[in-house]
């Protein structure tokens, strides 16, 4: 039932799969090895906005050169990243929901929280601007105009920092958008949500960093910015080693020190995309 050629092929496949398996087994122990004296690894849970912008790819090689520590990055929405940290599945967090962060530090889940950098959220939409968002005097007025005009709006809908800010703004504007026909909840990251807004010619609230890095592919223009209510503060914090004794607190602390050091802050300020600064160092606005 098997001719010789097929048997040979079978042997070859078996050998390939076996080799792949052996390689995998050979690699596995390396992954689990705890970090030595110098170096080691930490897991950073962060948001799609910091990761997709390329900021971390730019900072981490410099950090590794200085300390030998390798940062493994998991990019999630802020809500999920906070959950990952609370469960002890990461060592350090870089997220943007200041209220929730301070609350969780209070509750003892995280320690050593610092304000690292900020940028702002912007309202983007089609150039025609059917609801006249451009003329709005405040972020709340802009949202009210979108609601009154019943023009399409795409929301992140994923419990990320951006989504949480958007929901707070709707509430302050006195609009309950969830059940409206013009409101679409994407349940996706910032890039996907912007692309959806682009396809639907809809409005969208985005962080400036992601919008700038993707705007060459989008027919969306910046319609409203500059309201203090749209400030976007990023904070870094370590998982509390008293809650989760296995976390690499010492290494996490070094990472926090690096980001908040003068050198780290200058590096962040110097990071540009399409000629624009994406993140500004330090604390933006006091709440």
């Amino acid at each position, binding site marked *: 039932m*098997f*001719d010789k050629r097929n048997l040979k*092929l079978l042997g070859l496949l078996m050998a390939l*799969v076996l080799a*792949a398996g052996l390689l995998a087994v050979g690699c596995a122990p390396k992954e*689990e090895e705890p970090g030595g004296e110098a170096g080691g690894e930490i897991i950073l849970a962060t948001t799609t906005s910091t990761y997709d912008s390329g900021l971390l790819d730019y900072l981490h090689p410099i950090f590794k050169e200085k300390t030998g520590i390798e940062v493994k*990055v998991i990019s999630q929405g802020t809500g999920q990243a906070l959950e990952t940290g609370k469960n002890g599945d990461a060592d350090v967090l870089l997220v943007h929901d200041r209220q929730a962060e301070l609350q969780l530090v209070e509750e003892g889940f995280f320690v050593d929280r610092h304000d690292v950098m900020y940028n702002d959220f912007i309202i983007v939409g089609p150039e025609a601007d059917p609801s006249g968002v451009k003329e709005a005097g405040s972020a709340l007025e802009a949202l009210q105009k979108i609601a009154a005009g019943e023009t399409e709006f795409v929301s992140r809908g994923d419990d990320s920092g951006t989504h949480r800010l958007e929901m707070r703004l709707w509430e302050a504007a006195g609009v309950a958008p969830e059940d409206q026909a013009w409101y679409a909840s994407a349940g996706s990251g910032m890039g996907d949500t912007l692309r959806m807004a682009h396809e639907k010619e809809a409005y969208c609230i985005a962080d400036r960093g992601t919008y700038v890095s993707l705007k060459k592919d989008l027919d969306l223009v910046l319609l409203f910015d500059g309201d203090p209510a749209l400030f976007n503060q990023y904070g870094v914090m370590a998982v509390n080693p008293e809650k989760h004794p296995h976390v690499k607190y010492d290494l996490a602390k070094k990472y926090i020190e690096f980001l908040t050091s003068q050198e780290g802050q200058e590096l962040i300020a110097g990071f540009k995309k399409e000629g624009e600064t994406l993140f500004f160092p330090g604390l933006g606005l006091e709440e």
Partner: protein
Amino acid sequence: MPRLLEGIMEAFTLIIKLDPELMKIVLLSLQVSGAAIIISTLLGIPLGTWLGLKPEKKTALINKVIYTFMGLPPVVAGLVIYLLLSRVGPLGVLGLLYTPTAMIIAQVTLALPIVTGLTLVGVRSRGKEVEETARSLGAGPLLSAWTVVRESRVALLGAVVTGFGRVIAEVGAVMMVGGNIEGHTRVMTTAIVLETRKGNYAYAIGLGLILLTLSFVINTFLYRVQRGGEVNS
């Protein structure tokens, strides 16, 4: 459309240059899915053979369960393994979340039912006959089971290749338990998701082409073996 063409052109340069980052991702995909399929084969073929040789009535329920799990959505497998391996989960002390080992575990839960189920079907079609012949020639239970495996090898090979094709192409489970960490747990499918999100289409298309090529190689092989089997048996 021009973007798709541009992407394909750029993708070819990346592949031809053997872009080191790209190669690392492809290699890890093969390692993780290769290990998962080896484990699934070692467990699934004996299990499927054993079940296939039992009377159908006795194993009806377990058969139905296996067939159901053959269609298990990868994200569901990922979610369950995630909750088991998280630090606050029952196996949290092992610290396996966000490692290739976790990805292998998740893919085994996807591939094992497929290998077992297809083995079972293959063995059931002719296995009893073969087993009885072997027995009548004086073979013990183990030796006759081995004879069944040998005689059903075309079906079993199909089971293994189908399982491999399923896990190498899935994204939901490895994303959830691996975390898509660059250089550690980033595989082809999770990289495609990330690069698309970043608007980096060339890279995403390049990986897509490699995945398609792999799938083509596997299917060509499967087709030839199955045809060979038919002609000669």
